[in-house]
């Protein structure tokens, strides 16, 4: 498939796949809790409903930050699926997150303020591991280009088991799943109401939701990279990681930020950094 074709497929299919995954997440979570759960398509109904709602905002400008957040997330995924530079992808993703945080700061409500602060802490927690993942992939494949990494002959995970586990840990934070749903929990039952997204409504909130779908697909695409030489295994593992994330979400209480940051860095240091050290010693 040519990069352009992949790009178009991504732009069209990612929200559909992401939405279905999200609906499926809610269904599986419900079953884990002995509930029936909503229909698989519920996330789409939610977004459509949000789209029709009145747009209320403290400051109209807060919505532009979210628009940029959305565009940057889509752009990040586009870079990724077009086979661009992995480092560029990481920084584009960080920029997207920063726009989200800025939007929450702009909303000037104590809930979204503290949510934004916690989001920054979360970015700090997962970012080192994400960078180490890129470095680890470079050390094995000798390229930062995703196209090159994907066409590398062997299974990356065999050389990078520690990095892979660390990356899954980082995903847990990135997806804002329990125990790392500090900045904005899925159910608004926390001290910050809904933290960073408290003050967004209507279409803006719908946009945040769709951005998360794009993000989900792109991050699972990254999981796929670890198994790129065997496409079937890659897809299975990407879905497997998603199931794992949902499972973890259901068996943990929410951690406090100190514990979240500490554990994330400990995992990064031991699994991620340890793996890289071993790799460099092998050479």
């Amino acid at each position, binding site marked *: 498939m040519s990069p352009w074709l992949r790009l178009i497929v991504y732009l069209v299919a990612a929200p559909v796949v992401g939405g279905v995954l999200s609906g499926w997440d809610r269904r599986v979570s419900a079953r884990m809790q002995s509930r029936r759960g909503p229909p698989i398509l519920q996330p789409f109904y939610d977004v459509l409903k949000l789209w029709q709602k009145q747009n209320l905002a403290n400051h109209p400008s807060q919505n532009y930050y979210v628009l940029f957040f959305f565009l940057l997330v889509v752009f990040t995924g586009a870079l990724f699926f077009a086979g661009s530079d992995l480092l560029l992808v990481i920084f584009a993703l960080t920029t997207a997150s920063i726009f989200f945080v800025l939007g929450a700061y702009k909303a000037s409500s104590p809930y979204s*303020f503290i949510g934004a602060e916690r989001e920054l802490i979360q970015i700090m927690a997962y970012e080192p591991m994400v960078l180490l993942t890129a470095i680890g992939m470079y050390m094995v494949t000798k390229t930062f280009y995703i196209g090159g990494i994907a066409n590398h002959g062997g299974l990356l995970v065999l050389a990078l088991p520690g990095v892979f586990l660390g990356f899954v840990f980082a995903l847990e934070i990135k997806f804002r799943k329990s125990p790392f749903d500090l900045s904005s929990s899925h159910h608004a039952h926390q001290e910050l109401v809904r933290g960073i997204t408290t003050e967004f409504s209507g279409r803006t909130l719908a946009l945040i939701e769709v951005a998360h779908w794009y993000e989900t697909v792109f991050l699972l695409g990254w999981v796929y990279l670890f198994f790129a030489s065997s496409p079937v295994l890659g897809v299975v593992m990407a879905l497997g990681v998603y199931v794992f994330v949902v499972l973890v979400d259901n068996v943990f209480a929410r951690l406090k930020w100190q514990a979240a940051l500490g554990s994330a860095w400990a995992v990064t240091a031991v699994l991620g950094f340890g793996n890289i050290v071993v790799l460099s010693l092998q050479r």
Partner: protein
Amino acid sequence: MARTIIPFGPQHPVLPEPIHLDLVVEDEKVIEARPSIGFVHRGLEKLVEKKDFLDFVYVAERICGICSFIHGQTYCQAVEAIMDIPVPPRANYLRTVWGELSRIHSHLLWLGLMADGMGFESLFMHSWRVRERVLNIIEATTGGRVIFGSCKIGGVRRDMDAGAVRDTLSELEIIERDTREITKVFIHDNSVKKRLGGVGVLSRQEALDFGCVGPVLRASGVAQDMRKLGYAAYQDLPVEPVTRTDGDSYARCAVRCDEIFQSITLIRQALDKLPPGEIAVKVTGNPKGEVIMRTEQPRGEVVYCVKANGARNLQRFRVRTPTFANLPAMLKLLQGCDLADVPVLVLTIDPCISCTER
């Protein structure tokens, strides 16, 4: 970050009850918590001057939507004490059974809310699933689910036949099994321990000084349980208060977990010994005199002051609910805590604000 005030309530998803706290925070440290209540003050205590004392049971039951039965029971006991009405033993036993069922469902409700407060959603759902079974028993035996109005002055309104006793006992088996599974998580899960352990420590002396009651007091090592006073059937069914000594949120959680099993045992014993006979006696005359009646609610000691002067309506009816006594301790615990611990600390006393507002 400079000082900010984070409003908590009166409408807040963690605690859907009308209490408002102004949390003065610096970064994520709570410097001070300023409370205000009084959003839903209903003046039920004043209503006693207008209602017939026999009908007032219904009002007393509506003080709270969770521990409703024991409110009605306490009111009845207070009036019975003033009028010297001998309550038939069977009625006393049935009151005990329904009271303990209320305790189980209240504790399960609390466990669920606590799990939700610390972001453990699946545990929350499972706790409430078990609670549903308790409500089913109550519905099967009384016809109501939460406010079931089966207490009246002089006895109870409904009897339990042998079939109902058998069904209740077999349903209790399932409840006990499921509760065991849930409480295992509350007691042993690491992430729960991390969130509850060492959070909101109240020493034995502090708990007494703040006038705490119920599980809050018992978790700090004070073995006080009003059921030891021997009202209803508790004179025949010995109750040993469940205590812990750590005084933190984890200890309070453990006390409530153990109390569920204690209640299950008490119900079994009560149904086992259920004496035959009448379930109510006829009430004649008007009350004259006064009494302070105390019983053990799921949340702790409830105090009813009832004063009557021989008319159809009482002169004074005053309820000191357990939450009212535990609020000062909660405010103290909130000072200097982490913002992330606020839901845990607010829930740890099992607040029932509409109870408190009466």
